[in-house]
């Protein structure tokens, strides 16, 4: 008998053909979803630290300037993590017995360094320079997320290359000048920290200022986009060059 298959074979055959064709697509989608997910990028994943440091408390509630701890952010490639003695500047006076600060005290006593877990890590082969970004008025929170609202710190952005390129393609959306900068009283760099200061002291911020300070997605009104373009021109930011490979890879 030539009838080899049961009728169900028809359905099975058709379905398996479609399934077989779908496998690569599913695999690709799974892979790219995983790659883009916090599982891989570690975005939004709070990292445990030897001492549970709260940026929210220090930077937002207490209003301590970022540069108090990240001292080299304006001049060096690296923002810098404070030495134990910086912590102890205050904590030799206050919270001296807090169990949370045990690790810090121990470091100070023994002279061995604290070992913080790294939260923000630029991928290999990328040269990132904090100072130029801050000096150009790029808010810390643009790349680090709303750090001033984080209890334990997490990676605020994915740090994927395509993410970096969003800004390097057209920084105007991320640049903005407050009246103070426009009038020349403060530099774009100071504006960054000025906004944080205002935020934590409860001063009223405009919508755009608030977005900048919080590192929120930039829903900038069109006027301010133009302002950003103007700011770029003023500061001689050259967009064509910003996307050159050698800007970050060498």
């Amino acid at each position, binding site marked *: 008998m030539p009838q080899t298959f049961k009728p169900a074979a028809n359905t099975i055959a058709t379905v398996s053909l479609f399934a077989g064709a779908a496998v690569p697509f599913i695999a690709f989608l799974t892979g790219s979803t995983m790659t883009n997910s916090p599982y*891989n990028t570690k975005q939004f994943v709070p990292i445990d630290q030897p001492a549970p440091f709260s940026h929210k408390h220090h930077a937002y509630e207490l209003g301590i300037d970022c540069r108090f701890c990240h001292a080299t952010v304006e001049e060096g490639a690296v923002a810098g993590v404070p*030495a134990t003695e910086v912590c102890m500047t205050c904590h030799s006076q206050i919270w001296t017995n807090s169990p949370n600060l045990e690790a810090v005290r121990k470091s100070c006593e023994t002279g061995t360094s604290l070992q913080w877990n790294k939260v923000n890590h630029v991928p290999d082969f990328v*040269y990132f320079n904090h100072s130029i970004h801050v000096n150009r008025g790029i808010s810390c929170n643009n790349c680090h997320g709303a750090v001033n609202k984080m209890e334990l710190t997490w990676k605020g952005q994915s740090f994927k290359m395509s993410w970096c390129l969003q800004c390097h393609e057209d920084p105007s959306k991320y640049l903005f000048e407050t009246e103070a900068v426009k009038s020349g009283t403060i530099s774009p760099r100071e504006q960054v920290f000025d906004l944080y200061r205002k935020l934590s002291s409860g001063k009223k911020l405009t919508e755009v200022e608030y977005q900048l300070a919080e590192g929120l997605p930039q829903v900038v009104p069109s006027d301010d986009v133009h302002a950003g373009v103007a700011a770029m021109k003023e500061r001689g930011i050259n967009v064509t060059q910003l996307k050159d490979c050698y800007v970050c890879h060498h």
Partner: protein
Amino acid sequence: MSRSSRTATFATTKTMSRKKQGNAYYRGWEQFENPEAFDRVRADEFPARETLPGIDRRSLLKLAGGAAALATLGSGCRFQPQRKIVPFVHAPDSYVPGKDKYFASAATLDGYATGILVRSYEGRPVKIEGNPHHPSSLGACNHRTMAETAVMYDPERLQAPSLQGSFGTWGQFFTEALAGGKLALLTGNVSSPALHGQIQAFLQRFPGSRWFQYDAANRDSAREGAVLAFGRTVETIYDFERADVVLGLDADLFIEGPGTVAYGRAIVGRRDPEGEMNRLYAVESAPTTFGATADHRYPAKPSEVLSTAKAIAAALGVPGSVGAKGPDSVPVMEIVADLKAAGSRAVVVPGEFASAAVHACCHAINHALGAVGTTVRYTEPVLADWQNNSNQLRQLASMLEAGEVQSVLIFGGNPVYAAPGDVKFAEALAKAPFSAHLTLADNETSAVCRWALPASHFLEAWGDGKGHDGSLAVVQPLIEPMYDSKSEIEVLETLLEGSRSGERIVAQGWGLSPKGWKEMLARGVSAPKGAPSPNVSPIPNLLAGLPDGGSGTEVRFLPDPNVHDGRYSNVAWLQELPKPVTNLTWDNSIQVSPATAKKLGAGQQTKIMGVIPFYGAHDIVRLTVGESSVEGPIFVNPGMADDTVVVHMGYGRTRGGAFGTVGNPETHGGGFDVMKLRGTDSPWLASGTLIKAKGSYPLANTQFHNTLDVHPEDSGRDIIREVTLAAYREHPDALAHPSGEEGGAHHEDPHLPKLLYNNEKEFFDPTTNYQWAMTVDLNLCTGCNACVTACQAENNIPTVQKEQVMNGREMHWIRVDRYYRANGEEFDEANPRITFQPVACQQCDAAPCEPVCPVAATVHSHEGLNQMVYNRCVGTRYCSNNCPYKVRRFNFLHFTKRFEDVSVLHLMQNPDVSVRGRGVMEKCTYCVHRINHARIEAKKEEREIRDGEVVTACQQACPTGAIVFGDMRRESNAVAKTRASRRNYMLLEETNSRPRTTYLGKVRNPNPALEA
């Protein structure tokens, strides 16, 4: 294992060893209080460090490539362990992590110091550059000086005192040393007042003790020449800037001897065809970089060099030289006429390793020319207590034999290896009951000594030293000693039972106020004092007393241009650096002229049918001098004098470290030892015989001899443009527009060849972007190779070792091409013209490499740079195939594995440049990290980058300033000026690649009387 944890492991082990030895490891010299934390900071905090590719990622990706499709699909997928940030407990002041700092210091070779600036990251010295204030450096330095970082980070350095091969302590050593009697101190030549002071104190403290000096590459000839000529020692200093005519007699002016860097700049600085060009003559037995630069070069045996000197002296009327006749091959009369015409503005320079008689003749000639006071001046010797080194060693050996010396303290050097054949130093030394060798690394001498003591490298220790002109420079450490080591002055200080620190000893000698001392440290060199010039004049009838030259096959022993007397044997950078002119790496050879080789029936073959790997099969020949003989590969060196042999010292090491020790010739090299062929009476010259021996030996050359095989049809290859000064003056455009003269394939307007698409504006917008460009002045290039080493150090370029060099896989981003050309109408391999051309990535505007890259790993920047992105490269090598200049380098194997495996080599890497893993292409980037650095600083200050603010590593190192780099948009910029020169041309412009690196054509200034 992550990179950071590996580095941390290294730090931890070092920390442990430090604790054990009670010695602070690895601190910046100035202010770091917590080295331990600091180590970790360096390892973990700086993202720049993390550009070193880690094995973890690589192996992960390998796996991923094979199996885990999920891991690869996202392409950025990396499953990395948690990294740590380890800050200080107490941070040093004004410390910016990741920022480089420069410190002034000085590097000493054979007693003479050259001022340097050392770039340091987080307390680790990474790159050595010249100190513009130092007269011996003038801001540049040579390949050996730059390789000193590799010496310091040599993983095989001695790390702790060793007593007959087992662990010892410094305490034990000092106790033993002070107990011994009949002390002798053997050092190299000393110019350092601090060290000399310590030695003097030592000699006083221990009466009856003796001090001997020996360097294998010593200046005995210069010393004895002066003694012959003047009856006393003097230091001869040349002022080439004032010299219109220079005659070098076997003078390798740009490579050997004190002041080479400064002399190179001075000589070549006078070769601007727009100004007054000097004229250079070279009479030499083997081609040197000076000979290649010279307008007239005559091969002559050493004896003929001497007779030339005598003949010139005779022609100039020096008494006692009547009737002296030069060799037929040298047009003595014409040269003399030219010298006479220049008069006091002429100078005759003897080679560092020419015989004392030649030196004496030269003194006489310069006197006769009236050059003394103009182009030549004499000072008191720079070296303290300058002695005839060979005699010193012979004397020490005989005293050891006789038991007159019981205890020997050897500071540095390697006398057991480097002793001449007639001094049985090893046997003598073995007789001493107490012997100690203070040395950077284990070597032949420390093997014989009872004690091997770790010496501090000069980057780790305080000191000072004098330059070629006597200017005094300070040596300051960049890093605390990495191991349990001491410097020479520190050892002497302990022996003197003093307790002063190294800095204190040095500073005391200088006698400066604390403020003055600080300023001194910043400057690095003291302003030259008006040193008294001894009034000397040649002994009458000097020439009559001079010996005649040798006969038969004359053998010259020379320090190797790279590894010198063997002290740099274990520096892979220098081993792999192509030796000037020969382009040989990893070995020494028995160099003879083509005619001599033919007579000998020996030679070198290229590959049989191009495939069977016999490339570089050089016949082995036996060289016999007196009783001793040595076998080595022959190297046919066009332009050498016939019946002359040149062999380089520094090879054939038995304890030279991984790279220095003789190994399997197929993979390693290491050469053969000629030290024992030398005699104390005439260490540089001997009569010998040469016979063909059995077998052959592979030599690793970076450039083949077929460049010599200039076929008539090949002359159309318009690679080096060269004209005579007269022709240039007549047709100033002859170099930029040679069409019609040398025939062939040139466009009418070389500066603007047509592109298929006219996208000028869109692509190369000069209104907003910097437009980087470089020019290389062929008139100024001496082929000294400093740029190659500078580039290697700056850009973390790995060495690949001999086997891979033979495979053609060396990684140098810049290479110095050597071309043999016809010297006149016909090509003559007995005396070809030699030209050098440094070639790095030409950064073509219409780069042929770019369109062929399938993944856009090499694309153009808006500033005109041809960008090579390592992390995007998949390694198809298509770009390299399509590069007409073949300047791209591919990591065929994991060449940087050593950087990753050997933890101390982590410290040597420049953190601003990625370390490339295997399978990716790399090439010259115009030192883009320096550009970026300057750009960021300029932007922060809201200004443009200034001209000269960005200096590429090769440009920085170039002693003669042949390389000019900058933004070509502004007409006032240096590079715009050189590009506007009438000599400016593009290499291979017919490919229409429109390179950003252009060359300034060569103009020679031959003597019209000698131009056939």
